[in-house]
């Protein structure tokens, strides 16, 4: 039997499961493809279009021609399903918390979060408001950007920091290997952020 391989006319049929496992090992381990995964993820961090508060002004300016954050491989995209980063722009209100969580769950892993602005750190100017939640109560945050609002350069810097984190700590490839973020306990909100919605 003449085969494509020209190797004496034999057809190789192996155990698919085994081959898949080996392929995974090759990709993730020996051939240092894990690095490639991290490298690729780091340079295609696409934030989802979810504007939570007034920091959105500077968020929009970050992708404007003057600051051009697209040069770091990040491009805000409309659908949550095609993105892998969420950039929380400032305050998250109780109503918005539900939207943030739902959007976060819709995004495919490996996914990352940046929290922008003083409000996202600990409430900022609205620290004692009765209608806000801290973003870290809802989703796990990788990088915080201080400022009120942070300058666009700071946002671009945060993207670079996140890239560094992904590549140094190999976050993305480990995530694929182990199925979850090994470097942190998976953040689950203590109470359901959508409870208001279902009443």
């Amino acid at each position: 039997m003449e085969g494509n391989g020209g190797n004496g006319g034999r057809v190789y049929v192996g155990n698919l499961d085994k081959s898949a496992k080996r392929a995974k090992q090759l990709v993730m381990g020996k051939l240092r493809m894990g690095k490639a995964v991290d490298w690729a993820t780091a340079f295609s961090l696409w934030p989802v279009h979810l504007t939570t508060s007034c920091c959105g002004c500077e968020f929009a300016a970050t992708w404007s021609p003057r600051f051009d954050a697209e040069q770091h491989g990040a491009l805000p995209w409309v659908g949550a399903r095609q993105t892998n980063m969420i950039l929380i722009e400032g305050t998250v209100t109780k109503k918005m918390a539900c939207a943030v969580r739902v959007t976060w769950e819709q995004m495919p892993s490996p996914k990352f979060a940046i929290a922008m602005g003083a409000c996202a750190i600990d409430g900022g100017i609205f620290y004692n408001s009765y209608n806000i939640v801290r973003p870290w109560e809802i989703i796990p945050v990788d990088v915080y950007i201080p400022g009120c609002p942070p300058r666009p350069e700071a946002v671009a810097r945060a993207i670079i920091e996140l890239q560094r984190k992904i590549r140094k700590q190999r976050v993305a490839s480990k995530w694929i290997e182990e199925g979850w973020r090994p470097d942190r306990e998976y953040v689950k909100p203590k109470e359901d952020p959508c409870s208001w919605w279902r009443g």
Partner: protein
Amino acid sequence: MSLDQARRIVEEALSGIEYRVDEGKGFIEFIVAKENLVEAASRLKKAGFDHVKSLTVVDYKAEDKFKIVYHASSYLNEDLAKVIVGIGTEVPRSNPKVPTLVYVWRSVEFQEREVFEFFGIEFEDHPDLRLLLLAPQVAEKKPLRKDFIVKEEPIIRTKPPTG
């Protein structure tokens, strides 16, 4: 047009209705009884005040009352546009119910919904009295009432540097 002139116009329009005048800086308010509110508002609208700028509710806890004032002004009459005239009423805190003015001024529809959730004031006959801004759990607390207290961090005051 000055506030005095506007006052005369409104006084003329409100003839026959009992009212009290409350003056502020930059506006003037006419407080009527709850029963006369709709009538007074429609007369005001006939006089040319065609939209409401602000539905202002203040909680006077010490006096046990809510003051509900519709601050109206005009778009189509350029003279009246220069003044802000309020028409309002006062209700006890225990039974906050007023007739709605949606059918007089459409522009208050969303503002009445807002007041409903923040103060728990019910607008009778409002076509669509639902929550607007708040989640139900938060709206239960009626956050803008004075008995809902938000704590502030104390400020540490120091003397300004001299020299």
